[in-house]
């Protein structure tokens, strides 16, 4: 396992977080009662398909949405502070300083008109009152830490002069600038090619261990999750459907959605004449959320109970929670595997 010291002491506690947006067609709830803890020094994965609210959850933690359009409910606790009730200037002090974030597309995440040295230095100078010279020394240190070769030269280059992988390293350097305690990585490798993906991921793991920094990794790549994360939260249509340690999740998934996701990963030794498993149907629109279990429209096990009543998120094994009426039976009988194939 790659988790650092496990104190089992949550550094971030998200409690019944609900984020809704006012739209022309009425209120839309993108994140609906999501709760999870991030323990000190762990890498927590949040997985789910596009539109399941994983990015919305991340952005809500930092309150990046325009709060005239987005409504947050619930609580987010960090170091004795409830983030959702902080006044904007106090929230500014948390962003980047205590909790930092890296984004999907490293090209558009950097300002094209400034050198990268300038931008990393800015990340430091926003929160720390140190001289420009000291800031630049720290920038060089950060560039070295993130494995950028010849940092003395790179520091004066503009984003367009760097490759995608380099840019993502710069973004990570910015996220590390103030030694924040939590880093939220929103699909950090989606825009990069596979070899660079592996480099960036292993760097995130390395930094997590070296700096004892909590990481929330948002991804739809289960391979990455298996390799990197200690715990995983699976989301579907704005809700947590399963939460488990990474081993449990892969060996004994409880929720049919998680099982479906596992089954749709191609295996090296699979029978290539058979098509890959597809979870039938599409995610229902947020405007027409089904009554009862949200996955019922696509679930092979759904019955009348599922279609009429929402299952609670219940604990089935130590550290493993799932939101399914039939979790127990499905996982025991191994029925899942048959039903899906």
């Amino acid at each position, binding site marked *: 396992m790659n988790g650092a010291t496990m104190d089992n002491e949550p550094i971030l506690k998200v409690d019944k977080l609900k984020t809704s947006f006012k739209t022309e067609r009425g209120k839309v709830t993108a994140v609906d009662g999501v709760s999870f803890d991030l323990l000190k020094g762990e890498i927590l994965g949040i997985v789910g398909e596009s539109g399941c609210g994983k990015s919305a959850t991340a952005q809500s933690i*930092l309150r*990046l949405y325009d709060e*005239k359009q987005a409504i947050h409910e619930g609580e987010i606790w960090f170091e004795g502070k409830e983030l959702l009730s902080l006044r904007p*200037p106090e929230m*500014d*002090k*948390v*962003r*980047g*300083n205590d909790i*930092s*974030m*890296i*984004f*999907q*597309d490293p090209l*558009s*995440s*950097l*300002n*094209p*008109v*400034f050198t990268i040295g300038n931008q990393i230095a*800015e*990340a430091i100078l*926003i*929160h720390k009152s140190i001289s420009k010279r000291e800031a630049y020394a720290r920038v060089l240190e950060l560039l070295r830490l993130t494995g950028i*070769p*010849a940092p003395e*030269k790179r520091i004066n280059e503009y984003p367009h002069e760097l490759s995608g992988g380099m840019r993502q390293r710069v*973004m990570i350097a*910015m996220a590390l*600038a103030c030694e924040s305690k939590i880093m939220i990585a929103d699909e950090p490798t989606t825009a990069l090619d596979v070899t660079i993906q592996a480099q960036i991921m292993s760097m995130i793991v390395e930094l997590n261990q070296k700096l004892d920094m909590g990481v929330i990794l948002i991804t739809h790549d289960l391979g990455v999750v298996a390799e990197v994360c200690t715990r995983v939260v699976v989301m579907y249509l704005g809700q947590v459907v399963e939460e488990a340690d990474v081993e449990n999740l892969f060996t004994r998934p409880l929720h049919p959605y998680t099982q479906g996701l596992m089954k749709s990963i191609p295996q090296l030794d699979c029978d290539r004449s058979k098509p890959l498993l597809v979870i039938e149907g599409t995610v229902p629109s947020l405007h027409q959320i089904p009554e009862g279990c949200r996955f019922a429209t696509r679930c092979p096990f759904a019955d009348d109970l599922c279609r009429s009543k929402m299952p609670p998120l219940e604990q089935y094994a130590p550290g493993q929670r799932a939101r399914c009426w039939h979790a127990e039976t499905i996982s025991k009988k191994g029925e899942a595997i048959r039903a899906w194939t």
Partner: protein
Amino acid sequence: MTISSESIDLHAVKSALKKEQNKILWRQIMTNGSLFVGFVIIAFLILVALFGPLLMKHDPNTMDVLKRFAAPSADHWFGTDNLGRDVLARVIYGTRISMGIGVAVAIIASMSGLIVGIYSSYYKWLDHLLMRLSDGIMAFPGLLLALALMAALGGQASNVVIAVSIVATPYIARVVRSEALALKEQTFVEATRALGASDSRIIWQHIAPNTLSSLIVQATFIFAEAIIVEAALSFLGAGIPPPAPSWGNILSDGKTYIYKAWWMTFFPGMTITLAIIGLNLFGDGLRDLLDPHVSKAKK
């Protein structure tokens, strides 16, 4: 080790590439006809405005009644006017005044337009307020509004600058606002917010520098517009108070004698035309250079 030798090679490649890029940029500037011609005209007029008065033998305001209505000659290249003043001297002094007003308006309107545009892109309630105000200003014909403002403020060079700047500001603000609206949704702005940057830091450090290229292009057109409006105001007697020789004043003086002394209107008129053509060519060329989307679409 291999890495260091590689990085040296890379560096050489990079500097060669940079040289190549500079060469391409230089070629783009030189082959961009309108930019080049526009630049030459503007540079010439600026040089005239700065140094012309020093080289002149005639004073623009000294009257010589004996030489009234003298046709262009070796002594008076552009002839003399109804009071015997040298028209060339007046046009050259006028260059200083008119170009000065143009520059002042371009700078003031750019700054106020940048502030208005960028804040209205960022705060919605301000957007409604400022943009409706801009709509109101833009609904008037520019010259008419400037005329009304001059009537209210009183005829003075500084008031001409203020009046024309007020008329021009919404045009800059519109351009900046539309640019900033797109920029504000870019991920790098979100990323900067995630770093804990305050609104004003995002606005001035990150959005504003990215709007500059469109702002500069728009400012050259405002420069040209300001010269025309100033000339029109002076022509109508609501601009720079005579006898100060702004281009509009010289034209205005000449209009009564247009059949008797064509040079009194011809030369200042041609100078205004030259300045406006120069500025518009320069602005067009600059846009081609700074905004690759437009120039690509053209080809």
